[in-house]
C-alpha cells in the first residue's frame, strides 16, 4: 500500500504540470497497473527505488509522499537535474505514462 501512496504522490505532482484538474486518480490507477505489468526485475527495482526516494526526498520528518504538491514537484525537478541513470528511467516512466493518461481523455479536464 505504501508503494501505491508513493506512486500516487509522484503522479499527482507530475500530472499537475499537464493539467489543472484536481483529480488524477485515473492516472494513478493507470501508472500503478502498468507498474504491476512490468517484468519482475523492473518491478523489483522500481519498488526499491520508490521506497528509497520516499526517504531520500524527505523534508524535515515528512517523507516525499506526505509533502505538499508544490514541494514534491520542486524535488522531482531537482532529482531530474541530477541525471542519474536508473532514477531517470524511473522519472521517465512516471512522466510518460502520466502524460499519456492525462491526454488520453482530455475532456475529463472539465471535471475539475
Amino acid at each position, binding site marked *: 500500500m505504501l508503494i501505491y501512496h508513493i506512486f500516487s504522490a509522484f503522479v499527482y505532482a507530475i500530472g499537475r*504540470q499537464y493539467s489543472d484538474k484536481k483529480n488524477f486518480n485515473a492516472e494513478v490507477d493507470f501508472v500503478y497497473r502498468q507498474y504491476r505489468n512490468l*517484468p*519482475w526485475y523492473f518491478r523489483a527495482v522500481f519498488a526499491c527505488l520508490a521506497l528509497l526516494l520516499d526517504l531520500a526526498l524527505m523534508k524535515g520528518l515528512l517523507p516525499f509522499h506526505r509533502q505538499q504538491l508544490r514541494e514534491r514537484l520542486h524535488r522531482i525537478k531537482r532529482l531530474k537535474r541530477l541525471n542519474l541513470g536508473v532514477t531517470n528511467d524511473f522519472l521517465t516512466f512516471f512522466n510518460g505514462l502520466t502524460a*499519456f493518461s492525462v*491526454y*488520453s481523455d*482530455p475532456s475529463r479536464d472539465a471535471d475539475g
Partner: protein
Amino acid sequence: MRVFQDIVVGSGPGGAITSYFLKKADRDVLLIEAGSRLFQQDTVAFSKDEMLRKYWNGGLTVALGNPKIPFVLGKCFGGGSEINAGIYHRASPEVLEEWARRFQLRDIDEASLNEHYEYFEKELTVSSMPDNLIPKASRLLAEGASKLNWKCFEVPRWFDYDKPENQKQTMSETFLSRSIELDLEMVFEKTVRRLKQKNGIWHVVSFEGDSYHAENIFLCAGAVQTPSILMRSGIGRNVGRSLQLHPTIKATALFDDEINTEGMGVPVHQVREFSPAISLGCSISSLPYLSLALSEFENYTTFARENWKKMSTYYAMIRPESCARIINIPFTRDPVIRYDLSDRDVANLLSGLKKLCQLLFAAGARKVFPSILDEKFILDSADEIESRLANVDRKLIQLMSIHLFGSCPMGENPALCATDSYGRVSGQHGLYVNDASLLCTSLGLNPQGTLMCFARRNVLHFLETRNG
C-alpha cells in the same frame, strides 16, 4: 489424459495460420494463448485500454543495453496483428538470397514463395489506401521526399477499405474466426512454462499449473516467448542468441497547417531512398502519443494539447548489424533481453535521424522535436541539423522497436540454425517453430507478410509430409 494431434502455442499470425491449416486438414488441434479472448472491437486502437489489455507487460517490455530499447509485443487473441498498423511487405530477393547462402535455407525460390504471398494478399485484401483517405501528415512526407528527390511510396496494408468497420484484417478477424467455424479448441490466459516429451507424447505445462498433451507441438508464441519456452525446456541449440529487432528513432514535427485528425491512425507513406539500411516513415500521432513523445520537453507537453492538429510523429528505422540475447531466469516467466547496439548502428540511427529532420523541414516543418532525452533539443531550422546532431551521447537517444524476429533461425546450417528449413526443431521429433523467430535476418521492413508466407509454407509442408 486427452492427447491432441497438434497443440499450437500462440495465436498471433504464425499460430493463427498454423492452427487454421491444421484444422482445415481435419486434425485434432488445441490452441493455447497467453492473452485474453478479445476482438478488434473490444478496445480502441492505440488507446490506454488496448495497452493494458492487449500488450505484453502493458507495452513496457525493454531490451537492456546502452541505450535501452523498449519494444511492444501483442498478448491477446491474434497477437501482434491486433496491435500493429497492418503494414505489408514482401521480402526482397537480396534478403532471401542471403538466407539461402548463409543459413542454407532450402526451397525459397521466388516462384514457390510467390504462391504464399499472393494467397495472403488476396485473403487479407492487401491494398492501398483510397486516395481521399490518405492523411495530410502522410502526404507531407511524400512532398518532402519529392523536394529532396528521394524515393517515397505508399505502403499497402491488410485493410478492407470497403467494410464500414473492423477494416483491419487482423488474425482474430480472419484466420482465427475461420478456425472457430471449424470448431478449433482454444484455451486462454495460459502461459506455457515448459515442454517435456515422454513415450512420443509432448506434455505442455503452463505457469498456471495446467497440462496439455499432443503428438506435435507448434511453437508460435513470438520471437521472445518461443525461444524462452525452448530454453526452459532444455532445448537450446542456436536458440535465443540471435534475436533481432529494428531500432527506431522518432521525431515529432510542428507545421503551420492542420495535418492531424482524430482517428488518423498510422499514415501510410515510407521513404525508401536509403533502404534497406534506413527507412523513414510515419508513426501513430494521436494526442496521447504526441504528449508521450513530448513529455521530456518540459514546456511542450501542454503545447501538444493546444497544437496537436498541426503536429505529427515520424520515424527513422535501421536494419542493424547487432542482435540481442534472451536470458532466462529460473522460476520466472519474464526473460531478460540484452541488446548491445554497435557503434555503427548508433551512427546509422543518427544518420537516419538527420535525414528525417531534413525531410521534415523540406516538408515545411516549423519545429522538430527529436526523441533525445534533453529538453533543450528542439530544432528550429534545417541549418541546425548537422551541428546539433553531430555528437549526441548514445545514452540520450530514445529508441523503440515494434518488429522482433530471428531468435530461432531456420535453415540447414548447423552453426547458425535452430530448426531445419521448415521449422522442425533440430534433434526433436514432433516439435516445430512457426513464427517470426524463424526469420533468419532483418528484412529492413515490417516482417509480418514474410512471417505469414513462411508459416503457410511450413504448415503445408508438414501436412504433405505427414500424409504422404
